[in-house]
């Protein structure tokens, strides 16, 4: 585009040209008074950049997030000033907590009206200051293009995250010269000192029961092969955080799955029994470790992270290695000795057997076939390795974490850190548009109710998304806590709604089916996976299905609950 060199352009046009220059092909958003000029330029550039109109700005922010999770690219969302901007807040915070690169562009009132409580004016840089990696209020059109470039650079550098750019309307209408530049590269990361790497290698060589504990920092990068190579070399087992799911194939025999509050039995126990924990891109979050005061007291801990402030934040570690995880991990892999630990292997095998026993027992006790485990068995049989799994937040999310066979990275979109109910549908739309692959949204009747308006978007863009709505008529996860810790006082968790989700789907122009038995579910899911467009399955399950095992809040792996007998309690 050499002829564009040095051309005079309006700020609004510069926004679009800079987005295109930075490799953006799709943006999500919602027009409004203070972004009219940007939308005018989007209209003119419609053949070079695709805009997806959602039903609500929050849905657009989650769509940009889902788009980023499956591609690794920076997700872009555009909204107008005031309520448009504040509607992005939950989506930006979701991206922040899960380290998802995102650039949010908001319009604002002209600079002359700033600070006067003008119509639809809000100080969005102030509002989003604690939930962005960085944000900008652009007052001069000359700084617009450099600011957008820097925003992309910050969003994708080191530990990624969201960046917001607020642009007053007069900056969008002012003109200046625009010269196209290259796609920005991330800032160089720190290279860990040899002495740190050697300390880690020394601990690994001495360990008898090594456990590799991977998180979002590993899942976002192509590290699967290296992790397997280290596990094989030092005879270690691998577990993960919620954000680490999909980094490993579930079928890999050394992979024990997610650990923690609602994690799997074998991984939580293996973490406890290990004498060395190698944390890769994890923050030792309370959900994954339980009570940190009781967490792996006797084990040595190595932590690799891109973010300096994560080292020693939640758990005191023996070796903290800051910088590029991929490069540090590679150096450790190269430097450590080949080891065999048959006793460790036997111990972990016994933990796996115990996990199987617990699951079989739960299945045996169940009075129906329509259990979460069986539903996921059907999903696993029919989906393929490219199917994207998105979720909302609650019991269905934890069942997804426990039972879905993840087969490759970047095919999973779920709100881990912030736990945003209402995230799923927007994210599924963004993920589907990004991947062009079949997407399955696992949701619950509580979460789905929060942003079901985006069904309209899914229909408009005819995105092939199968919505498995696990409908139990209650807010299941909160109910589970009320059952276990609040004397079965079900305060405001019984929904008592009369929503007919099949008719609702049809009203939006999607397909709706109801499944009350596992056979009906199998038929509907198989049909949905072939359907060209959104397909909702109202999947009726019992209100007292539990997510087990569970580490009680404030407890440790020693307090793990593996079965609940409600009838026994009622006697």
């Amino acid at each position: 585009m050499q002829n564009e060199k040095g051309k005079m352009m309006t700020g609004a046009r510069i926004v679009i040209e800079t987005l295109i220059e930075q490799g953006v092909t799709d943006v999500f958003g919602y027009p409004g008074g203070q972004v009219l000029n940007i939308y005018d330029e989007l209209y003119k550039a419609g053949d070079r950049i695709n805009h997806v109109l959602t039903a609500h700005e929050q849905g657009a922010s989650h769509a940009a997030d889902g788009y980023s999770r499956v591609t690794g690219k920076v997700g872009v969302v555009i909204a107008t000033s005031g309520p448009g901007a504040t509607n992005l807040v939950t989506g930006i915070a979701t991206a922040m907590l899960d380290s998802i690169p995102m650039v949010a562009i908001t319009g604002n009132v002209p600079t002359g009206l700033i600070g006067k409580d003008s119509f639809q004016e809000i100080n969005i840089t102030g509002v989003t200051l604690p939930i962005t990696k960085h944000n900008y209020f652009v007052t001069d059109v000359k700084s617009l293009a450099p600011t957008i470039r820097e925003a992309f650079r910050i969003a994708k550098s080191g530990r990624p995250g969201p960046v917001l750019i607020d642009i007053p309307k007069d900056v969008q209408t002012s003109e200046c010269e625009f010269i196209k530049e290259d796609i920005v590269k991330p800032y160089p990361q720190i290279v860990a000192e040899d002495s740190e790497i050697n300390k880690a290698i020394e601990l690994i060589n001495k360990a008898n029961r090594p456990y590799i504990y991977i998180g979002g920092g590993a899942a976002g990068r192509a590290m699967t092969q290296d992790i397997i190579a280290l596990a094989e070399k030092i005879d270690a087992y691998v577990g993960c955080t919620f954000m680490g799911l999909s980094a490993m194939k579930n079928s890999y025999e050394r992979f024990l799955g997610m650990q923690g509050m609602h994690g799997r039995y074998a991984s939580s126990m293996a973490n406890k029994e290990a004498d060395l924990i190698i944390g890769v891109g994890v923050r030792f979050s309370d959900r994954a470790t339980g009570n940190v005061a009781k967490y792996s007291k006797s084990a040595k801990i190595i932590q690799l992270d891109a973010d300096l402030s994560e080292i020693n934040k939640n758990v005191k570690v023996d070796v903290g290695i800051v910088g590029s995880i991929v490069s540090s991990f590679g150096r450790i892999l190269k430097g450590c000795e080949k080891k065999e630990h048959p006793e460790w292997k036997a111990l972990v095998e016994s933990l796996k057997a115990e996990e199987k026993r617990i699951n079989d027992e739960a299945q045996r006790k169940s009075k129906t076939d329509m259990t979460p485990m069986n539903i996921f068995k059907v999903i696993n049989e029919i989906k393929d390795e490219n199917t994207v799994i998105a979720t909302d937040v609650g019991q269905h999310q934890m069942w997804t974490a426990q039972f879905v066979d993840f087969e490759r990275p970047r095919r999973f979109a779920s709100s881990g850190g912030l736990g945003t109910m209402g995230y799923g549908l927007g994210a599924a739309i963004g993920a589907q548009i990004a991947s062009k692959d079949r997407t399955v949204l696992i949701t619950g009747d509580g979460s789905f109710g929060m942003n079901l308006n985006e069904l309209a978007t899914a229909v408009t863009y005819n995105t092939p998304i199968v919505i498995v709505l696990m409908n139990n008529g209650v807010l299941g996860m909160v109910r589970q806590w009320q059952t276990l810790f609040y004397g079965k006082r079900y305060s405001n968790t019984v929904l008592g709604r009369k929503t007919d989700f099949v008719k609702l789907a049809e009203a939006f122009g999607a397909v709706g089916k109801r499944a009350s038995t596992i056979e009906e579910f199998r038929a509907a899911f198989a049909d949905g996976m072939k359907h060209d467009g959104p397909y909702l399955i109202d999947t009726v399950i019992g209100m007292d299905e539990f997510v087990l095992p569970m580490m009680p809040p404030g407890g440790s792996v020693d307090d793990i609950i593996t079965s609940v007998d409600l009838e026994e309690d009622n006697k």
Partner: protein
Amino acid sequence: MMRSVISVYVENKYGVLMRITNLFMRRGFNIDSLTVGETDDPLFSRITITIKGDENIREQLINQLKKLHNVRQVKLLEEQSSVERELMLLKVKNTPENRNEIMAAAEIYRAKIVDYKIDSMCVEVTGEPNKINAFIEVMKPLGIVEMCRTGVVALDRGSSIMDKQKNKYE
């Protein structure tokens, strides 16, 4: 509770101060004093923050400060190896009974009387925070009317400098 002095070398841009204080607010740290001023290079400012608080949280706060895009360098200044100064203006009642005592104290503390009215005096005193505190104790019984402290400014002793190289941690 440990007292710490943190020196932060930042880009001289709007909003930087808020980004920094926001981190302290999040962890419930009260800032004892905070000073900001341009450096010899007007593109950069130096912020000096004194806080009291838990050592582990302090370490993490420093690490989080280092991550901010506009922050170039952060340094914890050790008491033994740095110079700390603070300036105070203190207004005290001027009466025939206490006049001599104020003048004597000012002399000993190397303070200056910068305003003299028939019923009040304003004293300027510079020094380490401990000296300022001691001067306040001396003035208290004489009737302090109002006072104002700048907060601590501090630099490392010797030739070490904080550089403006690009932040490595973001």
